[in-house]
């Protein structure tokens, strides 16, 4: 029998980016908020020490910051004819754990999606005709527009101090920025990052080819910055230990460096770490959440009653908790009915290696940062004519030198032995003069068969079914990846590479090959309960005092990193809760 605690106004499941932002907004509104976080408490000076934060073995290879598969796992298969198996060690994506969530270990690439990304099905159908899209592609409009979300993108960027160059200020295209971006209301809060030699060379070559390169928007800051909450971030030292790592010197935007210091000072906020929510409780009608049940480190089961539940865990686990709690109808790929688990997506990443003459080029790859680099957006979204190409979607292409770490940054030309003296010599000859940081950040659109559900066999440590991922690449994405990779390879050639090795994404989807940790969808937002699990304010259609945050709500993924949009949606949802829901609790959109 669970011990029942005193009632709270709001219980938040997961204290990552969205949990922190929502907690701050709702405590500002005067509510009594408790956040329940599965992982440990983490802060900069005690957990990301400057003396050992840059330990590639510990953090990158041994996954120090991530969820332990023994703690919680997922199962995976490519299609419904296969039997899914548990993922015993993380590969294709990394699952954050602890205060700050994935906001601790991200690379801090802080993008906005394109205006047409939000009206994707309508836009593509209008431009290319209804028959242009594959039959099983289930992309849809988000139900909101870029312009509606713009103030909240702005809010997130000013929270983070994002470093970048505006490309479109209130409709006026700006030199040096991304000319394809939607109109922004003001410039980035801090100037772009300093660029390394490889980035400068990429930008020159891209310009030669007629593209308009621009610096990648970065949450690792070009200079110190104090955000509107009064929290100060430092200047990036370009150490190149961002993704997989916590930042040791307060220069990567994370909940720890932007929101949590303010939140912790509030008497109406409480965080309970190392506590795992096992279900969202509903009343007898099934239409109202009464709180959550969680298990603490002693194994005790505890019930936390609350007026509102905010589901702010990682996308996969948001969906798992909805399914385990019996909220909404599970998605059935055979009938297309049900919303929970539908339109799950990842990313379609590819790249190319560029080997340059070692006597002429020195890229100093260790001078790096997670979101440094120069990019082009000519081949993202629908910025280019897909009519003759036979696919939709795209991605930004960039030279992004995120690191020169000693264990993994060891690209050698094809034909080199995999070990021994010749391998060492080749690595010695190529380390400084090879471009490995290029990437084509391809979109992944949604399909009828790609989905999440509960595994029929495998259980977690509490005996609950694991979430099962069914995912494979479709031809559309593989064609797109080949196209983007070719374009990137052309730029590498233009830069002067002696040898270019293309690495387009190939099927089948491989759960051991890292792409990104951008898992999206599964409980998407939309305009009515027939096409979505959540309304446009991320409120559950089924349980109106439940809001589900994060990339879970993306109807499909775009050709960008998702965190900027995740942050914007959190502020958008918080604004709706504060200005509408709290005054009149109930559905914000009537179905």
């Amino acid at each position, binding site marked *: 029998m669970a011990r029942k605690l005193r009632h709270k106004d709001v219980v938040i499941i997961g204290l990552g980016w969205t949990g922190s932002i929502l907690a701050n907004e709702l405590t500002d509104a005067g509510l009594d908020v408790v956040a329940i976080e599965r992982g440990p408490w983490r802060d900069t000076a005690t957990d990301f020490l400057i003396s050992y934060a840059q330990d590639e073995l510990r953090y990158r290879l041994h996954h120090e910051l991530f969820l332990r598969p023994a703690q919680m796992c997922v199962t995976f298969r490519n299609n419904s004819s296969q039997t899914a198996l548990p993922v015993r060690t993380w590969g294709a994506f990394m699952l954050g754990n602890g205060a700050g969530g994935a906001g601790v270990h991200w690379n801090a690439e802080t993008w906005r999606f394109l205006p047409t990304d939000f009206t994707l099905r309508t836009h593509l159908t209008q431009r290319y005709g209804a028959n242009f899209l594959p039959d099983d592609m289930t992309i849809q409009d988000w139900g909101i527009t870029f312009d509606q979300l713009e103030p909240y993108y702005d809010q997130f960027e000013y929270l983070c101090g994002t470093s970048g160059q505006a490309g479109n200020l209130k409709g006026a295209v700006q030199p040096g920025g991304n000319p394809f971006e939607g109109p922004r209301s003001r410039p980035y809060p801090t100037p772009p990052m300093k660029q390394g030699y490889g980035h400068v060379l990429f930008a020159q070559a891209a310009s030669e080819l007629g593209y308009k390169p621009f610096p990648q928007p970065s949450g690792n800051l070009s200079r110190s910055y104090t955000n509107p909450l009064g929290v*100060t971030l430092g200047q990036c030292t370009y150490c190149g230990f961002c993704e997989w790592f916590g930042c040791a010197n307060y220069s990567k935007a994370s909940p720890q460096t932007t929101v949590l210091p303010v939140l912790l*000072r509030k008497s109406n906020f409480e965080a309970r770490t190392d506590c795992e929510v096992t279900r969202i409780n509903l009343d007898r009608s099934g239409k109202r959440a009464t709180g959550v049940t969680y298990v603490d480190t002693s194994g005790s089961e505890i019930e936390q009653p609350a007026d509102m539940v905010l589901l702010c865990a990682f996308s996969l686990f948001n969906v798992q908790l909805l399914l385990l709690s019996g909220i909404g109808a599970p998605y059935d790929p055979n009938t297309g009915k049900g919303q929970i688990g539908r339109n799950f997506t990842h990313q379609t990443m590819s790249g190319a290696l560029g080997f340059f003459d070692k006597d002429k080029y020195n890229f100093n790859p260790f001078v790096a940062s997670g979101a440094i680099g120069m990019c082009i957006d000519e081949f993202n979204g629908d910025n280019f004519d897909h009519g003759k190409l036979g696919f939709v979607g795209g991605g930004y292409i960039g030279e992004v030198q995120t690191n020169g770490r000693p264990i993994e940054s060891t690209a050698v030309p094809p034909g080199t032995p995999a070990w021994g003296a010749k391998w060492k010599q080749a690595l010695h000859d190529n380390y400084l003069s090879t471009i490995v940081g290029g990437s084509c950040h391809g979109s992944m659109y949604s399909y009828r068969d790609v989905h999440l559900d509960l595994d029929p066999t495998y259980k977690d440590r509490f005996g609950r079914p694991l979430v099962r991922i069914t995912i494979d690449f479709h031809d559309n994405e593989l064609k797109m990846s080949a196209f983007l990779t070719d374009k990137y390879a052309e730029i590498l050639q233009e830069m002067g590479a002696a040898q270019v090795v293309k690495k387009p994404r190939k099927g089948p989807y491989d759960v051991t090959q890292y792409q990104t940790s951008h898992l999206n969808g599964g409980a998407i937002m939309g305009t009515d309960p027939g096409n979505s699990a959540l309304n446009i304010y991320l409120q559950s259609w089924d349980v109106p005092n439940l809001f589900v945050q994060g990339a879970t709500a993306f109807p499909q993924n775009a050709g960008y990193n998702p965190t900027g949009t995740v942050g914007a949606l959190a502020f958008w949802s918080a604004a709706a809760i504060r200005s509408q829901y709290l005054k009149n609790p109930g559905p914000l959109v009537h179905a």
Partner: protein
Amino acid sequence: MRSRKQWLFALASAAALCASACGAAAAGIDKQDFGQIERGEYLAVVGDCAACHTLPGSGHAFAGGRPIETPFGTLLSPNITPDPTTGIGAWTDQEFVNALTKGTGRHGTRLYPAMPYTYYTKLTRDDALAIRAYLNTVPAVHNAVQPDQLPFPFRMRWTLAMWDELFFKPGTFHPDPKKSAEWNRGAYLADGAGHCGMCHTPKNFLGADDKGQRLRGYALQGWFAPDITNDSRRGLGGWSVGDIVAYLKTGHNQTSAATGPMSETLNLSTSKMTDADLKAIAVYLKNETGEGNAGKTASADPPDQTVMKSGEQIYADECSGCHTPNGKGIAGLFPSLNSSPVVQQTDPTTVLHVVLRGALSVGTKPAPTAPAMPQFAWILSDKDVAAVVTYIRNAWGNSAPAVSAGQVAKTRKMLVERSD
């Protein structure tokens, strides 16, 4: 002297009689005078009463029981809530005023000078009564505290009379007509209720202020409370009045961050003071000349160049990422070591403390970041710490005596033994 004390006792008794006979109003407290209560609350903040009289985490304001560390042993602070049996509810106002300004307990017993009556004596009677008026309004908490925890011979309170004879000069603050009203206000606050010198003035072997060394820094509780005179190297000479106000208000200014015991003082006291009062204190402190060794190097012998070279390399590897290669740090985040008074104190305790154990700077509403310094005790040897600390004390125009591995070892041992 003896006769003066007898006279004082007589006066106190008379006042006590009057108070009991005439009621509180005649003694200067009107329960409906909310202005007086509010002023008293503010003065209790300035005096930082809560720091000693509230046990952190107890939820009982002013109920005492907090251990007070002194060079002679640890005391427990008494309960000063209005509880009639375990607090001061039964005290007359005059008894309260006497305790505050004369260091005498209820029946003439002597208070330990851990209670800063040597400073509070400068309070006007009106202000002392205002504090009493405020304390009358806090919830009474029944909490019996036995303050006497000191070992022999210090637990013998009669010896305190001799201490007072030697070191205590009672008397209300007298404004200096030659100085500005602002300076006088600053002096009244800093030397009276604020009792800055309690930590920042060096003490003699019996724990009394060394009057000739006012505000020039003192080692206590595992830290060195730095020089806060206007000395240009070790004091506040390089800080503007605005820098001092920002520091006291927010815990941070462009070059520095509060940590250690000053964090608590900031949270409970200075951050809640008015800007005008903080400015007055700053103006006052900027007028304290201190040692006046401007421009002079602190030690006759320049530090060993091999040690400096080694320290420079350790600095580059371990420190420069945050404090930047030129030692200037990042405003609001990483304190400047370049020209830093804390770094250049003759006594390196604070720097060693911070390097070995790390430190969490204070977070306040206007400056909530509360950045922290990680600890290096686990990675740097005594010799390494000595080298890097000697380096930062003598790089970029800084100057302070070199630190030996032996000093580091001693501080390391002290920190192992201290839990705070």
